[in-house]
């Protein structure tokens, strides 16, 4: 084993440090200066060795903070540690120690670390701000929000509104699916049926479903209840895996009550209309039954037909009625299979939507055509038949009522109520053309009207 000479040993050591190092003597002259220091300062050893620091080189730093640190260290005669900006403006952590009568300076560039730390601090601050904002929003909005951070939705966290709405004492809601039924403070119902805990929106969202606008009723043990419009969505991690779920609920109890009340009012109104129709029916019956039974029957049929279209419209909440549904309802007495004395009736066409007024006009007109056919036309014999079909082309409805196989037709000598309803009532209501052709082989009625007028809301 040979011992290397001390100069070589020293060079090996200062290079082996792997970080910038230099040393100065009592006259500030640099006598050691490794290649890491050369890289840091951007000056080779040849330019630095023998130069006086703060005098020949970095003279401008003589009175600066870092100049003072070096001077203090030289004067103090003991180890000094700290962080500072180096001569070239980089953040460094340093150790200065007495070396003979001079000073050894070992340091490390920590600029990257400082930047990373600053970025992290910035990100943390931004995240903290966002969390604070979110918290403020959650506590302020008049919507109840609760969420879970586990896919099994065992622990629920709720905002202030949710706590108020669900009458809970603290910021944590119980997970209904974790509670035995007798311990649940409230239960959820949909259309009057209890919703099992694992079918509630949050639980479904925690399984990946997106729940939008589901109306649920929450009933408390105190018999109190609320109607909630709920939405729920899964919370996913960066890789898309489900990490929890969030649920929002708006209290729509008042709106629900209002809607129910409105429904009840409409129901009562319809009830009165129908009772009144029955009274009118009775009055007509009392008035004509004995003097003119034929007229009494005819009137009653018209009234019942009107009542029929009223029923159709009521079922659709007075939004309109389908043409095929309407034709089917009006012609029902003639479609009955047992009624083989009457002829065959067939109809075909799209179930286009008619606004209420159009529906009433159509219903009355078709009724008159059918009544006429039963009295004089194709439906007055066993052989006759009626074919009703309609098409919708280029924004227009084209309907054709065609009788055949009945007795020979001759034009009526006078125009009665039926003709009035068909030709005038319907044409005016539909903004269209209605024509009745008393063809000898059978009555043909054609209706041509713009679809837009038929369907537009009243």
């Amino acid at each position, binding site marked *: 084993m040979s011992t290397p000479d001390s100069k070589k040993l020293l060079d090996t050591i200062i290079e082996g440090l792997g970080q910038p190092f230099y040393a100065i003597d009592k006259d500030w002259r640099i006598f050691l200066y490794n290649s890491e220091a050369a890289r840091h300062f951007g000056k080779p050893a040849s330019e630095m060795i023998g130069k006086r620091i703060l005098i020949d080189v970095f003279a401008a730093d003589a009175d600066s903070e870092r100049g003072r640190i070096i001077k203090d260290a030289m004067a103090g005669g003991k180890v000094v540690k700290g962080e500072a900006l180096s001569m070239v403006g980089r953040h460094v952590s340093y150790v200065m120690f007495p070396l003979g009568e001079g000073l050894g300076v070992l340091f490390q560039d920590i600029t990257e670390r400082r930047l990373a730390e600053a970025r992290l601090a910035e990100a943390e601050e931004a995240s903290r701000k966002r969390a604070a904002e979110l918290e403020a929003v959650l506590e302020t909005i008049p919507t109840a929000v609760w969420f879970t951070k586990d896919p099994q939705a065992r622990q629920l966290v709720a905002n202030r509104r949710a706590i108020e709405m669900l009458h809970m004492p603290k910021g944590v809601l119980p997970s209904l699916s974790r509670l035995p039924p007798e311990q649940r403070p409230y239960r959820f119902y949909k259309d009057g049926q209890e919703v099992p805990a694992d079918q509630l929106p949050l639980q479904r969202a925690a399984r990946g479903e997106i729940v939008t606008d589901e109306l649920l009723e929450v009933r408390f043990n105190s018999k109190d209840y609320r109607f909630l419009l709920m939405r729920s969505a899964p919370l996913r991690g960066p890789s898309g895996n489900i990490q929890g779920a969030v649920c929002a609920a708006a209290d729509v109890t008042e709106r629900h009550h209002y809607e129910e009340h409105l429904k009840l009012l409409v129901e009562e109104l319809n009830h009165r209309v129908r009772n009144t129709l*029955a009274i009118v029916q009775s009055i007509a019956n009392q008035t004509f039954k004995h003097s003119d039974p034929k007229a009494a029957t005819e009137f009653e049929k018209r009234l019942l037909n009107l009542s029929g279209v009223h029923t159709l419209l009521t*079922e659709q909440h007075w939004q309109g009625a389908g043409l095929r549904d309407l034709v089917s309802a009006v012609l029902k007495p003639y479609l009955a299979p047992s009624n083989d004395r009457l002829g065959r009736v067939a109809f075909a066409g799209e179930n286009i939507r008619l606004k209420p007024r159009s529906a009433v006009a159509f219903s009355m007109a078709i009724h008159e055509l059918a009544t006429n056919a039963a009295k004089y036309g194709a439906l007055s014999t066993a052989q006759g038949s009626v074919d009703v079909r309609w098409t919708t082309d280029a924004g227009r409805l084209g309907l054709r009522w065609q009788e055949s196989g009945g007795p020979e037709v001759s034009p009526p000598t006078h125009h009665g109520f039926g003709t009035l309803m068909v030709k005038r009532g319907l044409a005016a209501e539909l903004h269209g053309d209605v024509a009745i052709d008393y063809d000898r082989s059978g009555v043909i009625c054609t209706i041509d009207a713009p679809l837009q007028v038929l369907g537009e809301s009243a």
Partner: protein
Amino acid sequence: MRRVLIVEDEVLVAALLEGMLRELGCEVAALSGNLSQALEVAATANFDFAVLDINIDGGPSYPVADLLIQRGVPMMFSTGYSTKRLPDRHADAVILHKPFSLEQLQAALARLPVPPRPSVDPRTR
């Protein structure tokens, strides 16, 4: 001839119903327009079936219906309501919608269960 109890508080509608039921070969055994009287009649009168208006003077006629079901007497409701939900226990009841034709009344009658005849043991015949 089947005997019928009519519960209807609107005189003209009751008259119409009465006329139609006669045409269908029924005899009106009793007619009542308010709840308390209807309950009394339903408990005591002798009839084969009943037509009950749901809304009568004094409230809904459901208690009358309950009494009739208890007595085993077939009955139908007549009503101007088209979408109202009946109480669950009457959900399957026959319903006659006002205004109605003779044919519709006849069809409703045909849906009524036939009241059980007094059972006769074949061995004692």
